[in-house]
């Protein structure tokens, strides 16, 4: 004995199927609605109902958390029904589906990048859409996530004592996220890495590296006088200058010893 759903599914009557599909959709039975919409999409091609069917069909994927397909169908909708009043909604939802798939910063950020790109395209295309503010907020949220990822990358290299790699990662962060509001912290990490790299270098590289650290520190103090890291940076600057003086003395002694012999 067939269930009601099965009866409708196999009825072969597009009008009935559509009517039931819409009913299921209203009742938030999205899986059933999706199955039925799929059946009638072909029959309604080129008809007035097609637009609405397709839009709801895309939404069933969204509600069922199948965001990859949801993004695909929303995008397809926007391309097919260029004149639709729902076109902008669909484009937003395509981007929003990708946003839903954006994972924690510790994982692959492909969907984050895709969502940012699509929200940006949306903003550019429809600057007057009421959702533009929301788009901007979401973009900011995801950029912050990407920035956090970049920051943690630098911290990892710092932790495993790969100071040069840490510096390079932090510098890349400043290049990729010029708008960052933790520039002082990033630069402080660079200075700390630079100092520790000098500490762990062979003697013949030390002078150059301490000098670099001192220069970075001076620049920092000039630029971020208000930063909470001023104290630490000053102390690094002091230490670097001390070390430079020591190296200078050694160098002087060696020189004079060499001249004396």
């Amino acid at each position, binding site marked *: 004995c067939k269930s009601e759903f099965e009866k409708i599914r196999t009825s072969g009557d597009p009008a009935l199927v559509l009517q039931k599909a819409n009913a299921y959709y209203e009742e938030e039975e999205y899986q059933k609605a999706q199955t039925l919409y799929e059946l009638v999409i072909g029959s309604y*091609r*080129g008809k007035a109902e097609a637009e609405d069917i397709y839009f709801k069909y895309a939404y069933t994927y969204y509600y069922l958390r199948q965001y990859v397909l949801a993004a695909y169908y929303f995008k397809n909708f926007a391309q097919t029904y*260029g004149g639709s009043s729902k076109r902008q909604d669909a484009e937003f939802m395509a981007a929003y589906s990708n946003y839903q798939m954006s994972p924690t910063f*510790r*994982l692959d950020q492909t969907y984050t990048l895709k969502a940012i790109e699509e929200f940006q395209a949306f903003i550019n295309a429809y600057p007057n859409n009421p959702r533009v503010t929301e788009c901007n907020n979401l973009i900011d949220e995801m950029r912050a996530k990407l920035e956090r990822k970049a920051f*943690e990358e630098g911290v990892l290299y710092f932790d*495993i004592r790969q100071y*040069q790699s840490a510096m*390079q990662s932090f510098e890349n962060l400043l290049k990729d996220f010029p708008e960052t509001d933790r520039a002082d912290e990033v630069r402080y990490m660079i200075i700390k890495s630079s100092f520790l790299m000098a500490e762990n270098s062979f003697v013949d590289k030390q002078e150059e590296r301490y000098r670099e650290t001192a220069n970075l520190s001076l620049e920092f103090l000039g630029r971020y006088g208000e930063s909470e890291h001023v104290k630490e940076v000053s102390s690094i600057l002091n230490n670097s200058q001390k070390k430079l003086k020591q190296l200078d003395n050694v160098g002087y002694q060696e020189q004079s010893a060499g001249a004396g012999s």
Partner: protein
Amino acid sequence: QVATDTLPIFSYDEPKEYEIGGITVTGANFSDDNAIIGVSGLKVGDKIRIPGGEIPRAMKSLWKLRLFTDVQILEEKTIGDVIFLELIVQERPRLSRHSYRGIKKSYHEDLNETLEQFLLKGGIVTENVKVNASEAIQDFFIGKGFLDAEVSVSEQVDSSRINSVALVFDVDRGERVKIHDIIFQGNENVKDKKLRKQMDNTKRKRRFLASSKFIEDEYEEDQDAIIQFYNTIGFRDAQIVSDSFWRNEDGRVMLQMNIDEGNQYYFRNITWKGNSIYPTETLESVLGIEKGEIYNQELLETRLRFSQDGRDVSTLYMDNGYLFFQVDPTEVAIVGDSIDLEMRIFEGPQATIDKVVIMGNDRTHEHVIRRELRTRPGDKFSRSDIIRSQREIVNLGYFNPEALDINTPVNPQRGTVDIEYTVEEKPSDQLELSAGWGGNRRVIGTLGVAFNNFSLRNIFNKEAWRPLPQGDGQRVSLRAQTNGDFYQSYNMSFTEPWLGGKKPTSFTLAGFYNRFAFGTRGTSSRQSFNIIQGSVSLGTRLRWPDDNFVYSTAINIQTLSLDNWISGLFRTDDGGVVSEGYYNNFSLSQTIARTTINDPIFPKEGSKFSLSLQATLPYSLLFFQDRDYSELSSAERFRWLEYHKWRFDAEWYTPLVGKLVLKAQSKIGILGTYNKKVGTSPFERFQLGGDGINNQQFGFAGVDIISLRGYDVEDLEANLDPNGGSGNIATPVFSKHTLELRYPLSLNPSSTIFVTAFAQAGNAWRTVRDFNPFDLKRSAGLGLRVFLPMFGTLGFDYGLGFDKEVTADKKRGTFNIVLGFEPE
């Protein structure tokens, strides 16, 4: 087209803006007018430019529906700057279904796939569609060697739906056409046979089963192969001047090629220009082409750029970071049949790594991968670092080794390179749920889980439970086994591979409780044996001698208690059964291991060595010097177990031919004592022989169980009861050596399957003094292994033992089953 004449002419010099005042649709009998307008993207009230982008875009959208054979957008009228548009479409019957006649059903699916791009259900049927689809079917059969395939198509009105037709393809595929002969002309320096051999796809019909299809594309490829062959032997001007194709009287294909071979050329002087890092002699020796050799373009390219074994000029530079390296072999003189080459080299700067990007990790957290990589931002590029990083990624065991992709996009302006690792996650958790025969012919139920990529930090994060918090590379395993009252075992372990996140120092916490019990509680028939153990271990990667070495140290606290336990497995040196008592087994283990194996399931090459020492304090020498041990019962003598236990394992893998891999392995174990008066510990001994599967079920029962294929435990003399009893004892010394040929049937990570042929030799001895490394029991046999990520290794071995007595109820062959993991 009639409409052409009436098309209004707009001047492109002055595009004008109009407001749409109305849109009408003509010709849509089966489609909905409003839907058509909707798809066009044009709306009443919109401002459009004519000429401009909107009208063509609308046309394109309507065409894309594939419902019309014609689409026009006309200006109906204009009033001032308000325009009224007319969309004229021409509809055609739509396709409801298609079918085939004259061919077997097995083809239908392949054909449906082929036709997908031409036929759209609900789309319109035009002559064009029909012709394209028919031709596609014909090409499909020609591709299969049916050169005479004929296809015709007919339309049938589908009465069940309005405006629908069904298409029926009538196919007569005809006979498969074979190639009768291939004729060459003009080939003076190379025999016909040699040339035919170059043709991989196009063959003469000679043998019964050999394929001999004529497929035009493949024939052209084969012609290229002939020319390439000529090029490798110095005929660099060789060409196929003409070729012809006809059918002989039997309808078979005849092919003829006329070849102009040209002259044979030789290398003469090769000079190098622009090299500063490597001297000319080094480059010459890598190139390895001598003056007077036959000119071979392919060889030249191989030695310059594409050598399979990585010994070419480009690799020499690239490995050292010269990623922008280019070499351009230029012919500077051709004298007679001799060619002078000048190698023009651009070395470029040494590339520095800018970013290291990890993609595709949708489960494993980035830092778990990144900390293992040897390519780091700011380092100089080196190919060997990439290869090492690749190995480290595979070693994590979370990713599909076959799908690992590494890209190195360069930025020539900045002299930098990015390194992009794209990984593909594979299931790494194991679930064990089994019922099997235990040692005493009882059913044992097991429930075990191993999560190899756990995330402890997310354990309170509800979002992360999908289905488990994962991604931090921690390992958790939990296992419970029981067959009711007789046997119960509970294990747990937790490993954090990077304790503190700063160094690859692994931290493991493990514990287990095992209980064996027979007989009725509270009566004298009751026998029991309990073990409780807790251990903490730290492992760290060494920098010296190289960083493949790992050193680990562990503290094990174990207590064993026996009550009326007369299995006879635990013996003192003189054969006395240890059946009562409470024993403290507190030891410290030290292990040094080196591994270069990159795939833990089916290693293709690499080696693994490990040497370990597990030792207790020498209590009898430290604290109880004045004790007379000969007077004490075994329970008192061994209350504080004392021993030093040595294990040495070595494994080595090397590829032989193709996918065939040779595995060589040696294992030695020795349990020593500090004090002869105390004697060898009855626990921590070894038992060699059999399937080693008890290792899994009674793994913590106070003995190390080692398999020996081809022999059961009782087949080894040393394992027999010295007092003539029926039980088997454990021994303090064993050694085992294995040679194994392994061939993979499937390397798919979701089911790795391989077959093995093995030769093994091993033996056990009752005292260290008896140990004779040449007195071994030999065996050989065959086996199969299947690795399923959820269940671990499953398989069997059949081994023949050559050094055992064969009697009526003792066969030479022994059959062993592997369940869960490879036995020791």
